[in-house]
């Protein structure tokens, strides 16, 4: 045990004196954090120009529907000429025109709402199409969405509308989690991955680069003790970066798990950290140059992060990728973290923990085999 603690203490001391290694572990998650925040600005409202050419009351109604939908549009109410200029200058993504004679069209039952769309890609173009369809539906069916579903034997209330279909939306939770909060969670996971993988790997490659592996071979250390010590050192290195970040995010209420969910949340984090550190130790034993270790560490971390659902939702991926992600340990880490932080129950968390533990153990055994051989 003493041997394990000595190796761990030594490795942690080396890590603390390696500012460049710490920087390398922190930069990718920091970049991802900035990305999430920038993305928050991109994924929300779309800039749209509204041209009202008919002064009639029906035109006013539809213009108010559009103006009030601040969740969908960042609106510029302007003239047709200026709207065209805004579209040409890419200051708006679409121009909606309520044409002359709109009220007459409504009276005849055939009014049109014209819009010109910059459709360079379907992501934002579809956002605008959906929003305009919703505004159009609201015009002829302002009562859309006001029906109430009957529950537990009680009869509901269906408010008739011109489209003959209404929706009864049932939200699973009382509040929506903001996009940036939802995505901050994977950033923490990326931090754990980068710190664990790079920490373990760089400590290993350093032994080869500085020739200290020769001294390690002379020491009366058991193979398992050495690997356990290195792993503990890498875990301490990871904790030295991750714990302050966690404390900060908890203080800011970004991390705010439901009552009783802290232990599973921390267990998932620990499982991920053990896996990452073991993988790092393995990588450091295989690759002996810090340059290649750093590049390989960042590449491996990014694959684990994205294939595990760090910046995606696994359910959105094609079936073959979903199957492939079953072999990606971080999938269980991310699933477990999301379940314990955002959901009321802990469905699937024991499975996630078991899978993470299995992957960590397998990587650990591989590390013991490879690293143990190199110090023998």
């Amino acid at each position, binding site marked *: 045990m003493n041997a394990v603690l000595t190796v761990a203490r030594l490795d942690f001391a080396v890590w603390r004196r390696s500012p460049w290694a710490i920087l390398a572990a922190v930069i990718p998650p920091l970049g991802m954090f900035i990305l999430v925040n920038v993305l928050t600005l991109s994924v929300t409202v779309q800039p749209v120009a509204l041209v009202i050419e008919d002064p009639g009351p029906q035109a006013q109604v539809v213009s108010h529907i559009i103006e009030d939908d601040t969740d969908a549009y960042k609106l510029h109410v302007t003239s047709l000429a200026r709207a065209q200029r805004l579209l040409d200058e890419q200051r708006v993504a679409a121009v909606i025109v309520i044409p002359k004679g709109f009220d007459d069209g409504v009276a005849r039952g055939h009014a049109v709402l014209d819009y010109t769309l910059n459709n360079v890609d379907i992501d934002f173009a579809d956002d605008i199409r959906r929003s305009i369809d919703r505004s159009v539906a609201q015009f002829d069916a302002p009562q859309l969405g006001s029906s109430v579903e009957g529950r537990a034997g009680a009869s509901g209330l269906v408010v008739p509308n011109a489209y003959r279909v209404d929706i*009864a939306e049932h*939200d699973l939770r009382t509040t929506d989690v903001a996009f940036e909060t939802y995505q901050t969670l994977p950033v923490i996971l990326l931090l754990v991955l980068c710190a664990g993988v790079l920490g373990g790997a760089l400590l290993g490659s350093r032994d080869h680069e500085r020739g200290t592996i020769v001294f390690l071979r002379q020491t009366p250390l058991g193979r398992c003790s050495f690997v356990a010590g290195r792993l503990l050192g890498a875990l301490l290195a990871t904790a030295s970066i991750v714990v302050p970040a966690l404390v900060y995010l908890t203080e800011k209420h970004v991390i705010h798990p439901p009552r009783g969910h802290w232990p599973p949340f921390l267990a998932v984090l620990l499982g991920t950290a053990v896996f990452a550190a073991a993988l790092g130790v393995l990588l450091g034993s295989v690759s002996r140059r810090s*340059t290649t270790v750093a590049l390989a560490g960042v590449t491996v971390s990014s694959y684990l992060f994205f294939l595990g659902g760090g910046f995606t939702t696994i359910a959105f991926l094609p079936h073959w990728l979903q199957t492939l992600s079953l072999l990606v340990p971080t999938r269980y880490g991310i699933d477990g973290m999301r379940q314990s932080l955002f959901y009321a129950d802990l469905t699937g968390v024991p499975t996630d923990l078991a899978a993470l533990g299995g992957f960590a153990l397998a990587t650990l055994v591989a590390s013991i085999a490879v690293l143990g051989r190199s110090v023998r």
Partner: protein
Amino acid sequence: MAMAEGMRALRAAARAELQQLNRSRVLVGLVFVEAITFLVLVSLFGLTGSRAPTALIQLDRGPLAQSFVRQLEEAHNSFSLRPMTAARAKQEIAQGEIVASVTIPRDFDTAIAHGRTVLVPVTVDNVNADMDNDLRGAIPSAIARFGEDHHFPGIRLDPVERDLIGHDTGYIPYLIVSALALTSLVVAGILGAVAVTREFEARTVTQWQLAPVHSGYLLAGKLVAAALVSALAIGAAALVVVLGYGVVPRHPLAAFGALALCVPMFTCLGACAGALLRKTLPVAALFFGLALPCYIDSGALEPLRFDGNKIWAIGHSSPVYSAIAVVEWGFHGFDVTPESVPQNVLQLAAWATASALVAVAVLQRRVVRR
């Protein structure tokens, strides 16, 4: 005479750097992997942008119900409908496997045929506000299209769409092209930086002082070699885009020309970063970390001008902005910036020149200081 000696030194430095890279095959291999990595990562991100996995619990299979389901399927790439039972839907939504469920009730056809309004229960896992907003917009959109399709009385307003571009472009084909600019930044940046940091770490940079030519020639030689290897990696990534993703460039000369311009520019930027850092260790992490925010804030997802003045102004601080503009024009024929393509090409050339000058200046200073 001095020029001829300088050119000889440049060639020698390039040869030495190529030999060095030849000895670091793992590093070069990893750089090639990194080039493809970004394409994969961007594709994964693109897959999340649309078609939310949604359970369809269809209790009525009449023609009107089928028509409504079709409208849900065609609601602007909003849903990926997965038919299943209510019990299974409940289980999958609890496990986060699907994000919503839509139930077509038993009497759907009969009620609508009799002019009654049918209530469609929709359960939404509103864990993520962004996804939830998309769903909230998509269902009324499907309802509106369904009503218009069947010309129900009382529907007085129709939207009429005119598109600036004759065809829609999928999110992944759009993203993957801008990812090539990002790949250039990462690959050329890393190799450019490593070419310089290696000199500091091996302490051979002191020997540059003894060279009978200006250190700019030596640096240029090393960067030419780094740029050549980068060009190969980026070329491989471009081939993957063309052959693997089927995105054929509309203006091949512009597309590959822009990438060719990106390589020396980002190699010089890398050299500049390497001269400042003097350590190889954080180089890969730095370029990877820089690449992600740079990518988003350079118009990779949509024309950056849509995001308002501030974001647009910030985007101009990165050469990736102009690179994406030219590459998107080359591959898709799109103008994604208010600036014209020649203006963006000029900006790229200016970035390349400025980066080279800064790299030489920084390195010259470092050499003199040592």
